[in-house]
């Protein structure tokens, strides 16, 4: 018998699912099961789980609610949400409240799931748990360190205004409405928090975010968006481990809270780089990287055409991209 490495809890109201998961994972791990949130939380309090896998759609207590409680009860435990149902609200909440590690769609890939669980177990055991911080309030002062910098990537002037109003002079802020500039800034400055729109101009900016996290895990990303797409959001978590997802229009008070929390998170990550391991990401496919590079190049060309004075911009972009993402 192979050594059982990892204590897992599977939660689903559908008994067949729970049984299948158990059969799949019990070879490698010690698997516990629960049919509802109440039982699951009771078990969490009794045992010290490495990973909790929960289905979203359950009566009385949804998966998001369960995982939120798990985060509170046992911050060390890695949280995976099983989804088969594009409930946007639930997904956003699971990001923002439960800080989910991965979304797994039903039907799961039986070759990959055990590997994912193993990775999660590893992180749970080797990386320090994040302290469960007290809930921030909207008027808690911004916890900014001197060298913090917020990069805002959005072509919507309202976002700039909102961030400027919140931040004032406490933190340095860079604004850019296009991706090429963003690459430039990321190259030349140390950025703490990125606040980005999912689409900048007409370009999908999520690729930048996803690629960034694998190389620069200390950067905390907050995504804003007019229209939230379940698939995009799932990918952003799985590949980008974004910190928060805020649908537009954004309420000023809420954005303040989010920025504050993001800055604190960045602090925590810089203080203890081991923490970043908690936010390991899946590899972004190479096509995404290539298409991003070509799009940024395109934007750089346009910018250079508009501002002929910016000599060498294109060149610096090329170098910047390579540095940011490796080749």
């Amino acid at each position: 018998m192979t050594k059982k490495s990892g204590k897992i809890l599977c939660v689903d109201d559908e008994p067949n699912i729970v049984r299948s998961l158990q059969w799949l994972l019990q070879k490698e791990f010690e698997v516990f099961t629960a049919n509802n949130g109440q039982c699951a939380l009771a078990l969490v309090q009794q045992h010290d789980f490495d990973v909790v896998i929960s289905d979203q759609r359950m009566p009385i207590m949804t998966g998001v609610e369960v995982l939120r409680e798990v985060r509170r009860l046992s911050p060390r435990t890695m949280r995976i949400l099983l989804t088969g149902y594009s409930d946007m609200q639930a997904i956003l909440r699971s990001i923002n409240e439960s800080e989910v590690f991965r979304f797994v769609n039903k039907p799961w890939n039986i070759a990959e799931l055990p590997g994912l669980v193993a990775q999660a177990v590893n992180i749970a055991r080797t990386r320090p748990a994040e302290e469960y911080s007290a809930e921030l309030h909207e008027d808690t002062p911004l916890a900014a360190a001197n060298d913090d910098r917020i990069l805002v990537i959005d072509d919507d002037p309202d976002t700039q205004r909102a961030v400027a109003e919140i931040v004032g002079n406490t933190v340095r802020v860079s604004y850019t409405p296009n991706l090429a500039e963003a690459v430039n800034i990321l190259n030349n400055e140390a950025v703490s928090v990125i606040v980005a729109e999912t689409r900048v101009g007409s370009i999908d900016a999520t690729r930048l975010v996803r690629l960034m996290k694998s190389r620069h895990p200390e950067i905390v990303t907050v995504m804003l968006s007019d229209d939230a797409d379940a698939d995009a959001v799932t990918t952003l978590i799985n590949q980008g481990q974004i910190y928060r997802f805020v649908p537009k229009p954004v309420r000023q008070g809420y954005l303040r809270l989010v920025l504050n929390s993001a800055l604190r998170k960045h602090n925590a990550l810089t203080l203890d780089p081991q923490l970043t391991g908690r936010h390991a990401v899946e590899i972004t496919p190479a096509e995404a990287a290539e298409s991003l590079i070509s799009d940024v190049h395109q934007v750089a060309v346009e910018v250079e055409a508009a501002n002929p004075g910016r000599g060498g911009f294109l060149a610096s972009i090329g170098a910047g991209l390579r540095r940011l993402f490796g080749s």
Partner: protein
Amino acid sequence: MQFKLVRYFTLASIGMFGLVAISLVYFEHQQGAFFKQTEEQQAAFFGEVQQSFARQQDESARRDLLTIHESGNVNLTRLFANALWARDFAPFVARAQAIDIHPCRAIADVDAGGKTVAPPEKKACFADVGKRIMALPGFDDIDAKVYDAMKKSTVFKIKVFDLRGVTIYSSEHEQIGDDKSANAGWRAAAHDGTPKSELTHRDTFSAFEGVVENRDLISSYLPVLEPGSSRVVGVFEVYSDVTPFLKQIEATSAQIRATALDNQAKVDAAARTNLAEVDAASNRQLATVAVLLSLLFVALLVIVRRADRIIRQQEKERQHSHQQLAQTEKMASLGQMVAGVAHQLNTPLAFSQNNVLMVKDALDSMVFPMKVANRMSSVLKTTTGDVVTLKVAQLRSNLARLEDGDVDVDMLQQMLGDVLEGIEQMSEMVVNLRDFTRLDRASVASADLNKSLHTVAYIAKSVIPHDILVVEEFHPLPEVECNASQLNQVFLNLINNAAQAIDGSGRITLRTEADGEQVRIEVEDTGRGIPPEVLPHIFDLYFTTKPAGQGTGLGLAIARDIVTQHGGEIRVDTRLGAGTTFIITLPIRQRAALAEAA
């Protein structure tokens, strides 16, 4: 019923304009007639005035003529009397008195043709008297003197009467002896002493000179006064010729008349031209008004036609939008259902796939041990003894693989059992979907509504939140003639609404009951209830309490339409904070109408 705007407008305006036109024409006509009448009256008046002037002129001319000549004659008589009476006439008259006329007078007048005339004997008697007078001495003398005095003058005849009325002398000798006592002129002169004159026309007249023809004469009866006194001693009758004067008068009159006629003609002509002008003017007016009215009509018609077109267009668009909206509603609810169904199917798919793959893997790992077992069987078959020697060196190196085969077959059996369950679940979904849409059935057929409701509830559970319990309280129902797929749509809509009314967890109860010739179906929820200000409107088309863009407001309206088409009723009971119940009653048998609509 479509309001035929253009037609009504055309009829109404033609009627109105026609009325206006007719009244205008009538008034113009009245005015024209009045004007014409006025003109005619004026002309007539003018004519009368002229004629009266002319007449007056003529009359006064004649009167003047008469007066002048009478006074002339009076003078003449005086002169004559002065000259001749005392010496010549008076004795003659006295002699004539001796002749007795009474026997002649005694002869009675006879009535001839309504007039009293003297019979021939009387005339003969008086003629005889005349002869006797002419036989008196001194007659010829007088006669000659008279002729001398009067010839070549305008006095054409003289007669002398005595106070008895007898014609003592006349320049026409045949008249001597006539009795003129009845004559008004003689009477006036003799008795009253006033001259009397008269203007006459004689076709023939025996004058001094001889017989004349065609003369206008003034005859005056003149009293002869004894010279030096005012005693009437005799009567003269003098005929003076005024033909030329009269001709003059007549000529003047004729001229005046001609002028009058001329003026009249001018007035008439002027009146006619005025009338013509007025007519023309009024015709112009009418024509202008008519043209303006037609322009107005045409302009309005164009506007109305456009308006009508636009209205029809808008109506078409509205219908089109309505249809689109109904379609969107259907698609949205269909989309929701499809998503729910997809998710529902995902679960059995997930674990079935998982289990089958695991069983496959397990079977793979059983291949080697099976091979070994088979090898063992074949070895056993060929060996006769009870003891066999195995070379386990090679086998030892494959120990791991052998151990792999120690598969928990019970577990595999359970796995496959679960797979079968999963397949069962998926079939159930497929069956329910098929029952829900009922595409393979005729539109109107007999259906078991309990089964329909159960199907709908099953489908709905994939869509509505998991913590809402759906409870079925069915009583046995007879088969109902209906369009089952339409009713399914209604039930699904009600269950969806019920779920949306519930915040968090709650219960939806589906109740059915047979009630004579009808069935009753209730959908009850434990939601927040319908507020009283919303309640009257819930079945209204496009009415929704959801924010803009989320609800089409068509669901309940369509539901009511479907129920009404089935000859049924739908009503609602609600309590704020407690819940709502929708109650549908449907007849078991359909009238021809629904069957036809199928």
